[in-house]
């Protein structure tokens, strides 16, 4: 059979140790994680006003494009190519050397697949930040921001932990991105909310979710996709993947139960927005721990992690900080709580990493160093990036346009157009 020449060469280069099972699982996981970004769009979109639904959805969907391309061209190399303790090199820029043979970080799956799997993480991390600036930020600057942010902020921090950087060498545990994805995005969100500023009506009007059903739909799809996020981070169809998968089911379940208890104690009513939020917080919290702790520990982790996020959400809305969809409370605080609890609950018998119960009491401190290091870099780099961007392009539209709604003003569309009175200009 005559194979096209490049294909033939690639097949010859492929070492025998590529595993069909590992590759199959990572293929599925990549698709699962990719779905999380549209799911996030619906989670966020349901929580904003109807006049901004398309803009909010597009902030997530656009990341699939902008960050997806930026990752392939440069981001992957800066995160995973051999480099210093601080940032990867440019060996894999433009995907050079990223072929069908085993990935250096995961030798049983094709390198190109590993790149794509990691790309889905960069995409959703950038999209997470949008929750802090919805209903007011201009779309052009947002696109430039997330594209550059994925290169300047996400890629280095991913390198620190997973690409052979200083946090990995220090022994910090971050199974699927509690620090790299969630602490990082949560801190960037606070900075973005401060630099872009509060919505015009924030603190003066009730800014209500326009479609709580979307928020629940999004939370459900996020949970589904998260099985790939955490289970896939085992980088193979292994026992660890099974553990991470099961923990991804149990920890958010416990967070959801705890969230409903807290809701009913506070107001005697269990809220749907609260349930959706609780699920996301549980998923965030188990992310750094998924492959390192036992299933009963995951239930403990999920339940405990509900507490700080729950109360910070209540507190935040009384402040002037318009982190509109509580990215900091859900992802920053949930991610940090999960990372610290990873340091408490990690057990050698489950995940192979020694925790305090195995005598490695220093792990908790290492985890805290990792959280603070990532948070500090994310805060400073995001601030500089947004301030510089703000010099070249205004980050917001006028007050009047914000009142009309960003769907019409920025996108020339309406999420719920009735079509009455619409006159065809060009068929």
């Amino acid at each position: 059979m005559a194979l096209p020449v490049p294909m033939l060469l690639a097949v010859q280069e492929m070492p025998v140790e590529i595993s069909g099972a590992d590759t199959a699982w990572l293929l599925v996981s990549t698709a699962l994680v990719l779905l999380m970004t549209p799911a996030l769009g619906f989670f966020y979109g349901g929580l904003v006003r109807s006049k901004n639904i398309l803009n909010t959805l597009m902030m997530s969907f656009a990341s699939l494009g902008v960050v997806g391309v930026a990752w392939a061209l440069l981001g992957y190399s800066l995160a995973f190519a051999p480099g210093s303790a601080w940032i990867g090199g440019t060996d894999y820029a433009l995907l050079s050397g990223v072929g069908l043979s085993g990935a250096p970080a995961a030798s049983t799956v094709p390198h190109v697949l590993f790149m794509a799997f990691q790309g889905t993480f960069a995409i959703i991390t950038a999209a997470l930040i949008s929750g802090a600036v919805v209903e007011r930020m201009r779309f052009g600057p947002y696109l430039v921001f997330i594209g550059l942010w994925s290169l300047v902020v996400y890629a280095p921090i991913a390198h620190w932990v997973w690409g052979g950087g200083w946090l990995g060498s220090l022994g910090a545990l971050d199974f699927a991105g509690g620090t790299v994805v969630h602490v990082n995005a949560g801190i960037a969100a606070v900075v973005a909310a401060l630099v872009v500023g509060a919505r015009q009506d924030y603190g003066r009007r009730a800014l209500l979710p326009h479609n709580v059903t979307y928020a629940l739909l999004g939370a459900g799809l996020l949970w589904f996709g998260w099985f790939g996020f955490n289970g896939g981070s085992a980088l193979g169809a292994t026992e660890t993947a099974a553990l991470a998968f099961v923990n991804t089911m149990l920890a958010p379940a416990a967070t959801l139960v705890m969230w409903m208890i807290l809701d009913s104690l506070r107001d005697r009513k269990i809220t749907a927005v609260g349930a959706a939020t609780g699920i996301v917080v549980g998923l965030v919290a188990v992310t750094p721990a998924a492959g390192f702790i036992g299933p009963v520990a995951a239930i403990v982790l999920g339940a405990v992690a509900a507490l700080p996020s729950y109360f910070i959400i209540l507190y935040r809305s009384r402040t002037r900080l318009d982190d509109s969809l509580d990215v900091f409370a859900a992802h920053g605080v949930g991610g940090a709580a999960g990372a610290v609890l990873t340091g408490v609950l990690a057990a050698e018998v489950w995940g192979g990493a020694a925790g305090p119960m195995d005598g490695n009491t220093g792990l908790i401190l290492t985890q805290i160093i990792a959280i603070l290091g990532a948070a500090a870099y994310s805060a400073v780099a995001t601030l500089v990036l947004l301030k510089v961007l703000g010099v070249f392009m205004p980050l917001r539209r006028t007050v009047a346009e914000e009142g009309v709604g960003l769907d019409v003003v920025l996108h020339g569309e309406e999420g719920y157009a009735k079509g009455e009175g619409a006159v065809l200009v060009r068929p």
Partner: protein
Amino acid sequence: MKLIVAIIRPDKLSDVLEELYRAKVRGLTVSPVQGHGGELEKVETYRGMTVKMELQEKVRLEIGVSEAFVERTVKAILDAAQTGQVGDGKVFVLSVDNVHRIRTGEVDEQAVTPMSEGAAV
């Protein structure tokens, strides 16, 4: 007594309600409507189809008031709903033949007088 009908921008509704509340105007009806007030058409594009949206989303307020409340009600709406751009809307003040309060059967001025003041008379 008069019936005040106001057509305003939807994003000004909260401001208007707040101003009416401050003016102690109670009892009103709000409905979402579509209309055209001479403003530039919005152009929207869906795939290859470009459309001019001739009708804009507006909100209609209907407020039945006693004579003493006419001026302050109109002023509250004008103050709160104005942006200075075309499309801010209109306020109509209409004469009313009869008003009946369904609950008590009161008619005319009594029927559009807020309960607290009515009780004082």
